[in-house]
């Protein structure tokens, strides 16, 4: 009963956030200097042709009318049509979501695999050179921007060694329906690596401090006292306890990973949401910009909602708090 009410409140907050976001996005995007009609016409722009095109695109309608027609459409699943090509925004954005999602999800799965052992090593051996080395590696990884790591990786593995393609993307299933898993992975290795370097470094630091804390806990000392080795005690008790804070960080990191992916898409020319967003901004195809930002906001809000709800499941103490 209490849980049901709490979930309902969270869902209401979620819906309200989406609504507020839609207003903010619309206002900010429409305040951008520059105009889509001029951008389309280019050097062929003169006042008459600009006015003609603006009228044809419905841009001569008042701001409020345009906002409600956009939001009204979205409620019924229609995100409008591109000013540039008259294609449906949904059809333009949908294939882009997959590219960005692959990038984010694969990176998010690999980062902990690197961070957990490295962070544990850094915690366990923090007074020896191995621990210092692990900490240093994560500090260096943290200091290298993902795009720069990307450029370096391209120079070494694509230009120098010819092992991997420099940039571009191949769908898992191509247009003719053939499976292309190898080409798909080849194109993702370098972009995922450049994202993982940063993500794993951030995580390593959290893992390290979480385990350092565990090492000073009473239950750990007890486990050692009954004769368990340090690694066994850490594995049986430490991992589970440290996991709570690490999982929280992973949830928070998802949003920054999404931003990182947008930058990395540029470096590797991946046709994801990031490249779509930048080209739509460059052409002032505002309805597409609005659509993509809305999708990103939606994704972040869903991640937050799920994180919130998962807390409720994990920690019963939180369930009553909102309901009271």
């Amino acid at each position, binding site marked *: 009963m209490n849980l049901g009410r709490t979930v309902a409140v969270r869902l209401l907050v979620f819906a309200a956030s989406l609504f507020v976001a839609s207003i903010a996005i619309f206002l900010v995007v429409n305040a951008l*200097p*520059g*105009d*889509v009609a*001029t*951008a*389309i*016409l*280019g*050097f*062929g*722009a*003169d*006042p*008459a*042709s*600009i006015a*003609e*095109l603006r009228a*044809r695109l419905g841009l001569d309608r008042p701001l409020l009318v345009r906002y409600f027609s956009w939001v009204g459409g979205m409620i019924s699943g229609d995100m409008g049509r591109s000013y*540039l*090509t*008259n*294609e449906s925004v949904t059809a*333009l954005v949908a294939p*882009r979501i997959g590219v960005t999602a692959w990038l984010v999800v694969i990176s998010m799965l690999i980062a902990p695999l690197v961070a957990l052992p490295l962070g544990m090593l850094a915690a366990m051996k923090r007074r020896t050179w191995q621990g210092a080395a692990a900490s240093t590696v994560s500090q260096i990884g943290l200091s290298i921007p993902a795009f720069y790591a990307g*450029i370096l990786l*391209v*120079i070494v593995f*694509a*230009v120098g*060694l*010819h*092992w*991997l*393609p*420099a*940039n*571009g*993307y191949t769908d898992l299933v191509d*247009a*003719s329906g*053939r499976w*292309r898993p*190898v*080409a798909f992975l*080849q194109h993702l290795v370098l972009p995922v690596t450049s994202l993982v370097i940063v993500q794993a470094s951030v995580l390593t630091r959290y893992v390290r401090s979480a385990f350092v804390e565990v090492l000073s806990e009473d239950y750990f000392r007890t486990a050692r006292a009954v004769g368990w080795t340090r690694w066994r005690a850490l594995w049986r008790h430490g991992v589970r306890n440290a996991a709570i804070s690490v999982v929280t960080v992973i949830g928070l990191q998802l949003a920054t990973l999404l931003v990182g992916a947008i930058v990395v898409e*540029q*470096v590797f*020319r991946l*046709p*994801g949401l990031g*490249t*779509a967003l*930048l*080209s739509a*901004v*460059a*052409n002032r*195809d505002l309805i597409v910009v609005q659509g993509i930002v809305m999708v990103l906001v939606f994704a972040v809000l869903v991640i937050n909602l799920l994180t919130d709800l998962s807390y409720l499941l994990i920690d019963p103490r939180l369930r009553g708090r909102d309901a009271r």
Partner: protein
Amino acid sequence: MVSGRISRRALLGGTAAIAVSAAACSGPSTPSATPKTLSVGASLEPPTLDPTMSDAASIPQLLLYNVYETLVKMDSDGNIKPLLAERWDVSSDHLTYTFTLQQGAKFASGTAVDAAAVVAGIQRMRTSTSSTIKRQLAPIASVAAQNSSTVVVTLSQPSNEWLYSMTSTAGMIVDPASTDMATKPMGSGPFAYSSWTKGDSITLDKNTKYWGTPGRFDDVTLRYYVDPNAMTTAMLSGDLDIISSLQAPQSLSQFSDTAKYTIVEGTTTGKVTMGFNHSNAALSQLKIRQAICYAIDRKALLDTVWAGHGQLIGSHVAPTEPYYEDLSNTYPFDPAKAKALLAEAGVTNLSLRLRVPVVKYATDSATFVQSQLKDVGITVTIEQLDFARWLTEVFTNGDYDMTIVNHVEARDLVKWADPKYYWHYNNPELQALVKEADAGSADDYVQLMKQAAELLANDAAADWLFLMPNLVVTTSDVTGVGQNATSLSFDLTTIASR
């Protein structure tokens, strides 16, 4: 190390497997050969594929002559040649053009390119939203089909520019069946539009019904790179066969291995122009404009900004245009003279806003110009605007003192005759020359346009910083790339590969 070796082998094995499967798939249609493909790197992705809406040069780069054909074509020497029209006759009063069409020409859809289709195509272009095409086709009074293979175009006034325009975007003959030019171009060229992966590439397939010499590739993919260095690395790592226009000339040395790469260097019709806003009180004075031109060492600018590739021109004319002459020495670098002219004009503490789009040639040139004008006592404030904002604020609203942009179109000197154009240059003498040239005989045209170019140069109407070079890099087995880009098309029809 070991893992590195294993992964490498796995990856190479994977590539081989894909190549084999691709070959197997192509089996039924061409039993012995793998499909012949060409991968071309280009810098700007088209915003839309509809040339009647957008003036973006990336549209004709992809579609002109490759997908859409024109009655007449611009060859690589800048001459007008037959294409869909086998020949054309001009009446003695220069008002009636009679085009005899190629027999057997067909659109990729299979429909014949007959007189009715050509008339419909010209009419479609006349109703363009783009003011450029509207202006270019404005001399047309009527278009009619005399019989199934003859089209008669009547002009309201004689115009040399008009026939030239018919070699460019304005002359594209669109399939009458086409309803969605923005995403599904339908023409009669040797290649047909196949697919567009937004943010990545556009693919053209060979038009198997082509009426003329068939295309030499089964499919051609234009890949778009916002970052010129990404295009260079893609070429170096073997992902591309051609860089259609190198935007990072400093990286040219990376392609010096002639066993692997061929570099084609020639001219384009792109004039990198530092425009003055003539409605600005200071810049409306000849002496001040001259002072600015004397103050800038364009040779040094070219060396710094474009690694010395390209050439100095001195007026709004490219070397492949018929009325070109070298006017680059009209205002040789002479800072002392610049200072003297400023003193004569009685100006001190001149301060100007240089508002440029964020493109490499413009921002780099702006910095150079700023430092050289500082030496003669002119303070320049640089503002960088993204291109869409530049189009609104500078190009449309005229809110600037000076700006730098590459005018890519051929034979666009005529724009100086429009006082409403963003330079706000209102010179009746030039307007009269351009008008007279357009209406005159072919010889008059060249002579009068030469005079117009000289007039612009002497009047320091702008400072033409340099002519953008045509820098194409190909793998060594690609041949037939035109040395000079005389039109906006990246002409695939001449390109072959061993």
